[in-house]
């Protein structure tokens, strides 16, 4: 109740200020729209289905791209964590590559894949792959060794050891990395979509600019934030809660 009241106060003040600034007409409405105008743009976008289509296209891409980087990242991360040679060589390379903004892969992707869906997917994968890899490597190292010993002792080996012991044992340690990977995937996707006629949310956002329609620009920005927030709240918060219930308060126990 108190929490709800706090939210209510915060957002009322925020919207109040916004409305006030817009109504003072310091800037022309096509540069500084009212909340009302943004609401109308949102309504119109959903009404003519263009937002629905954009959401579907973008979500499909990000889910496929993220899934690829999770699978690849787990294999890479495990490899790096379990091999001293790889750790010393590739480990450093991975960390330095992470400082490269994912959109820097765009020119390379264009040359390799042409102006296509695959070029966008490539950028998404490159955006999130490294954080998943580093998280997996770190999780594998932080995971108490005793789980692996107990698993081998009870007859688990090879893939079974990985699937039934090492992966679930390291999950609490990699969940934050998976979450970060998701955020990077989402950002990379929107960026890549803005550079290419792609039907996705990024393109709808750019369309607002092309039409000089600031209300639409802000409407799509709100949409992008909301989608990221919802996925985080449903998928990752749910996963964290699930782990918390199973493991108790501290993962180390």
């Amino acid at each position: 109740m108190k929490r709800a009241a706090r939210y209510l106060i915060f957002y009322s003040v925020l919207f109040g200020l916004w409305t006030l600034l817009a109504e003072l007409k310091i800037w022309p409405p096509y540069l500084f729209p009212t909340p009302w105008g943004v609401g109308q743009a949102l309504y119109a976008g959903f009404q003519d289905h263009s937002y629905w289509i954009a959401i579907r296209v973008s979500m499909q891409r990000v889910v496929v791209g993220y899934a690829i980087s999770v699978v690849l990242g787990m294999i890479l991360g495990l490899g790096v964590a379990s091999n001293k040679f790889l750790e010393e060589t590739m480990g450093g390379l991975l960390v330095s590559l992470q400082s490269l903004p994912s959109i820097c892969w765009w020119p390379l992707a264009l040359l390799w894949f042409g102006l296509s869906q695959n070029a966008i997917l490539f950028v998404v994968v490159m955006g999130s792959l490294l954080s998943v890899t580093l998280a997996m490597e770190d999780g594998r190292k932080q995971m108490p060794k005793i789980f692996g010993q107990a698993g081998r002792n009870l007859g688990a080996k090879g893939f079974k050891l990985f699937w039934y012991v090492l992966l679930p044992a390291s999950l609490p340690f990699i969940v934050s990395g998976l979450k970060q990977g998701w955020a990077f995937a989402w950002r990379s996707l929107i960026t890549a979509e803005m550079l290419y006629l792609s039907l996705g949310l990024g393109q709808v956002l750019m369309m607002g600019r092309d039409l000089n329609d600031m209300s639409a620009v802000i409407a799509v920005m709100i949409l992008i934030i909301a989608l990221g927030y919802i996925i985080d709240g449903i998928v990752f918060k749910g996963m964290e809660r699930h782990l918390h219930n199973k493991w108790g308060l501290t993962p180390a126990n």
Partner: protein
Amino acid sequence: MSTNAQNLPRQFPIPVDPALPAHSGTPGTRIGPVSIRRPGYAVSPNASKVGLSDICLSYRTQSGERLLALDNINLQVRAGEFVCIVGPSGCGKSTLLHLIAGLHPQTSGQILVDGNPIQGPGTDRIMIFQEHALFPWLTVGQNVEFGMKMKGIPKAERQEKTRYYLRLVHLAKFEKSYIHQLSGGMRQRVAIARALATEPDVLLMDEPFAALDAQTRDLLHDELERIWSETGRTIIFVTHNVREAIRLGDRVVLLTFRPGRVKSEFPVELPRPRHLEDPTVARAARGNS
């Protein structure tokens, strides 16, 4: 359970807990899924279950020098025997158990089980760790089931055995609980059930009760002795506590500190069941350590 243990006649075999359910099958031949391979605790006199010959283990420290952790360990453990290995912290007694479990290779020497050299880990030798070795992402029941699942035992059989072994350690009600919801003593009972469920010949226990309070530890001593007498497993039990070793073991092996060598060994001939606070146990501990 404690009252139950105190009312027991001071003789072996300890009667099977009447609370344990009768299991389908020919009466007298099997209790539950566990074959009773020996009555009471009579140890077959000659059969060597686990044989260690000339075991050495050395490793390189960070600074590059070679450190001898275990030096020329020779030990024969008979089938059904309860052997306690005692030594100060850092003498390599836990490491020795890891070697027997096949989790780590020895530098030289041979480990035989039933006369055959071991090839890495095997479910004929199951380890019970000091603590935190249960899988927190699984329920109690799934933990007990784990070894059987790895072996590919069908689900119905797994569940039946899981329930049986959970009843054996008096935790039937906790099948669906998660590990963090249990107390330390309960966790070690789950660990015992999980180890027994793969039906190993040899239980390797690595200071399993060291982290427990005295009262819980006493209870678990009684339970372990009962389970040992009912299931006929061979037990190699590592502890730093001489009294605990004398309380539990048929034989006690003392290791020296760095490098770990067998300093001496002696049989414990006190009648069972024993109690940690018995003056006889205390006297034996003083006399031999």
